């Protein structure tokens, strides 16, 4: 099976994100970046399918130069090669625009399976994979935890709300959006990290892939969330704060 895995580089989880002076984006200087969490699960699912059935795992990532470090991380974990759609202006597109770039790059590879993460940890549109499927003319399923290959295609386990699941059969080729937690993530080995340096990383410019659509939904402004509820913040040392909290739990909340 030839599997494409879409991987996005996003600000690291604990990074302090600040709003840029334009008010339309975040301040990117001195931010740390990491692999989007659900994409790591998509990569793991792809690597396990390859280990079982053979084939190739190709990483596809759109982003500026810096995304290269996240791509190398995926190669170090075992992906065979990578394609980077280089663009510094992705944040001017919406999910449809980015999906068009990714779908056009993916089409050139004629994959059997395209995996994306369920949702990006920065913009959180939760759509890119579904839109790619639509552009590529392929069936899709989202919120997928596991993938089994069958004689006629694949059977996937889809998460439903409140602890329910469902199996779905799809023909190949298909596009899946992968939810976290279906498999256990591997770490890159030293050997893997070494090998990653020699693996192919093909760069495509966004302009080569055709002009993406102007945004149907434009991000106009970024702001701090409005505070809704006033939390009583308990200050002091850990010990003092703990003592005060216990007083409150005893005399105000009455649970102790």
């Amino acid at each position: 099976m030839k599997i494409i895995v879409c991987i996005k580089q996003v600000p690291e989880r604990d990074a302090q994100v600040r709003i840029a002076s334009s008010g339309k984006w975040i301040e990117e200087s001195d931010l740390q970046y990491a692999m989007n969490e659900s994409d790591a699960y998509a990569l793991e699912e792809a690597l396990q399918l390859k280990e079982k059935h053979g084939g190739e795992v190709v990483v596809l990532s759109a982003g500026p130069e810096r995304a290269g470090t996240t791509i190398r991380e995926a190669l170090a974990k075992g992906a065979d090669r990578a394609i980077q759609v280089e663009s510094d202006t992705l944040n001017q597109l919406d999910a449809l625009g980015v999906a068009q770039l990714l779908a056009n790059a993916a089409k050139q590879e004629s994959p059997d399976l395209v995996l994306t993460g369920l949702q990006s940890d920065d913009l959180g549109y939760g759509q890119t994979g579904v839109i790619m499927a639509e552009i590529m003319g392929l069936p899709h399923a989202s919120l997928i935890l596991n993938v089994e290959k069958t004689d006629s295609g694949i059977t996937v386990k889809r998460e439903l709300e409140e602890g329910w699941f469902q199996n779905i059969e799809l023909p190949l080729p298909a596009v899946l959006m992968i939810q976290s937690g279906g498999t256990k993530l591997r770490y890159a080995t030293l050997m893997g990290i070494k090998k990653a340096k020699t693996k192919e990383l093909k760069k495509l410019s966004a302009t080569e892939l055709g002009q993406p659509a102007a945004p149907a939904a434009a991000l106009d402004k970024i702001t701090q969330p409005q505070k809704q509820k006033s939390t009583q913040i308990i200050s002091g040392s850990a010990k003092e704060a703990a003592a005060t909290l216990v007083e409150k739990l005893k005399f105000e909340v009455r649970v102790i």
Partner: protein
Amino acid sequence: MSGVYVVLEDRNGRFGRISFEAIAAANILAAQSGSKPTAIVIGAQTEALAAEAATKNVGKVVRIEHALLSPYTPDGYAAALQQFIAAESPDYIVFPHTYQVRDYAPALAARLGRVLIGDVTQIADGPVFIRSLMQGRLSGSYKSTGGPTLVSVQSGAFRAEDAQSSPAEITTFAPNIEASQIRTKPGEPFRGTAQTVDLGSAPMIVAVGRGIREESNLNLVQDLAASLGAEIAASRPICDNGWLPIERQVGSSGQTVAPKLYVAVGISGAIQHLVGMKGSQCIVAINKDAEAPIFEVADYGIVGDLFEVVPALTEAVKSAKL
């Protein structure tokens, strides 16, 4: 034609609360033109659903009905709604932000050359659609350029409206769908592992998140839970890692709880976690990041290192009980 439409979603013949919240959001948009939204029910047999929808605060109800619309498939729903939209040219279509909507609405939008403005928490004048960015740490304001505009609303963000007295008019729309258009074959829903803990009835819960860093640190929160006599629960990453069983996961894909006391330790407060616990009577958050969204729903907060605060709290609870 034009106007505001709202797609209602049922599970086993019943609407979820989030569908009524979507009606409220649709009414905000419809009020701009002094009208009421039209509710859409979709399925193979929609008569009873339509009758219920007609008692809600909507101007009309449309039944989009076809044998191939049950069970749900993204291909079936996208094809049916695409035809309906072609016939009616709506300005706005509002959806509840459910897992099902996440699965088909982006495909529908793409067929129309549009995107879904998803998981919206607020609609301001303009209209401007506000949704979370960076896992709830920032808010983004979106404007739609052109139409139709597809919007999905976050669970709990809009107040579900009361019913109206005289039922709305009901019409039917029959889409053309061929079996060959439906490329995926869904199976029956099933439950995960047998539930052996019922967090729903626990009076106190101590929940742990990724701030705990390692599995071997879990004993810190287990000690706190034991001192309080509380059940232990977790955010998704803890269960994803296999550190606690999935039946202890709280949130949209786990359990919904409403204890007297919910202590969130090292949990950031992503919306998918909050929907599972924000109904708790008293919420305590312990987090080193004063900006963490969990403090939005907490009654009491301690901003600090959980590795210092949690052991101190365990001791304080123990001595209070002596």
